């Protein structure tokens, strides 16, 4: 990855953080706010495959942890696993399919929130399973499904061709997203 590639990816992540920390924190639905940072490992996994999904998930998770009062590193761990799982699950699929990003964002976001709460409970914070988990899963999953295509386009710009090398269908996916 060249410095220019890294700068583009950093800019994308920074943009997502800004939107999350400003607009999304004010937008509460049923007392729950959307979490678009979860979209980053998902779209990175779709576009770049398991390895890139895991790497970008880890990095964006660490950034998310900077702004959360929950255990430091928990978002990084779950986002890393999610990016890897999404990359692995979609590697053999047609990435140009219009339904892929919203459906994966819907399921991936739900998986993220449930895993986040479960791992938090394992790490000594049992109250994370006693919050309005169903509401959180529904709100985050649905909003991320709606925002999946714009996120794909932005991340496709941030992840250059060099960063998706080795992916069997990455050219088609990135091209379609662009």
């Amino acid at each position, binding site marked *: 990855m060249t410095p220019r590639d890294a700068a583009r990816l950093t800019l994308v992540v920074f943009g997502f953080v800004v939107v999350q920390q400003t607009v999304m924190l*004010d937008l509460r639905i049923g007392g729950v706010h959307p979490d678009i940072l979860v979209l980053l490992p998902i779209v990175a996994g779709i576009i770049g495959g398991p390895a890139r999904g895991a790497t970008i998930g880890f990095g964006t998770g660490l950034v998310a942890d900077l702004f959360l*009062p929950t255990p430091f590193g928990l978002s990084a761990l779950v986002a890393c696993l999610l990016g890897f799982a999404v990359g692995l699950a979609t590697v053999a699929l047609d990435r140009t399919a219009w339904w892929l990003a919203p459906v994966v964002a819907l399921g991936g976001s739900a998986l993220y929130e449930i895993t986040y709460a479960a791992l938090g409970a394992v790490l000594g914070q049992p*109250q994370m399973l006693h919050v309005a988990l169903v509401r959180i899963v529904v709100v985050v999953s649905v909003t991320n499904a709606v925002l999946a295509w714009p996120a794909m386009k932005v991340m496709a710009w941030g992840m250059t061709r060099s960063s998706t090398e080795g992916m069997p269908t990455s050219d088609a996916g990135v091209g379609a997203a662009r």
Partner: protein
Amino acid sequence: MLILILAAVTIITLDARGGLHVVTSGVRSAASDAFAPVRSGVNAVVEPIGSFLAGSVHYGAVREQNQKLQAEIDQLRMEQAAQAGQAQALKQLSALLHLPYLGNLQTVPAEVTDFGTSDFAATIDIDVGRADGVQLNMPVIGLGGLVGQVVIVSHHTATVRLITDGQSAVGVRYGPPPGSLAVLNGAGSGKPLSADLIPADTPLTDGEIFTTSGLQGALFPPGIPVARVTGSHTGSSASQESVTLQPLADLAHLRYVTVVLWGPSA
């Protein structure tokens, strides 16, 4: 992949065991400091958009509220709503600055800027930080009683963990002086507190007030009202009484709070 997972687990473990907590706390503080101007600038631009989106989501409620507000406009004009609002804010702040149970403890008034960045934790953000003398673990008081404790502090802002958060535990006294000791635990935002260490069949009345214990090394100074009893019972063969309590401060509608410049070693 394995390296990343191991790295994440290592970070979590070190942070939880305290070895890395100073570092992570410092990094969080630095990130908050660095991001504050960006957040402030972007908020000024996009807040109207956020409000519009929020309004769209709650269209029905907003419309109903709008109709009510329209009906109240004439009356509000007569009452000079703006002045009344300012007077009320001043009254709240004044009340916060003269809380009798704080004695001579130094305090810093603060405005609540946000109700939590995570749906998994009960926290609030306030507009004072290190520059105002605020430090980690300092108690935060609202009208009525204890609100929580500072858990993240940056230069000009701080995050407060509310007493309803599942990670919160407050040492308290109850009953006739000198009072018996117990621990109040949070169970999540909006949920009642529960009490630990209260022996079975202890006579408690609804409305009884629990105050901070102030034992040596305690996280809060003594005598701050925390919560009132809303229910208690002892199950058959239980060694402890099951007690639920309601925080005295209205945690869902906090506007101003007071940070007590106090630490266990002070």
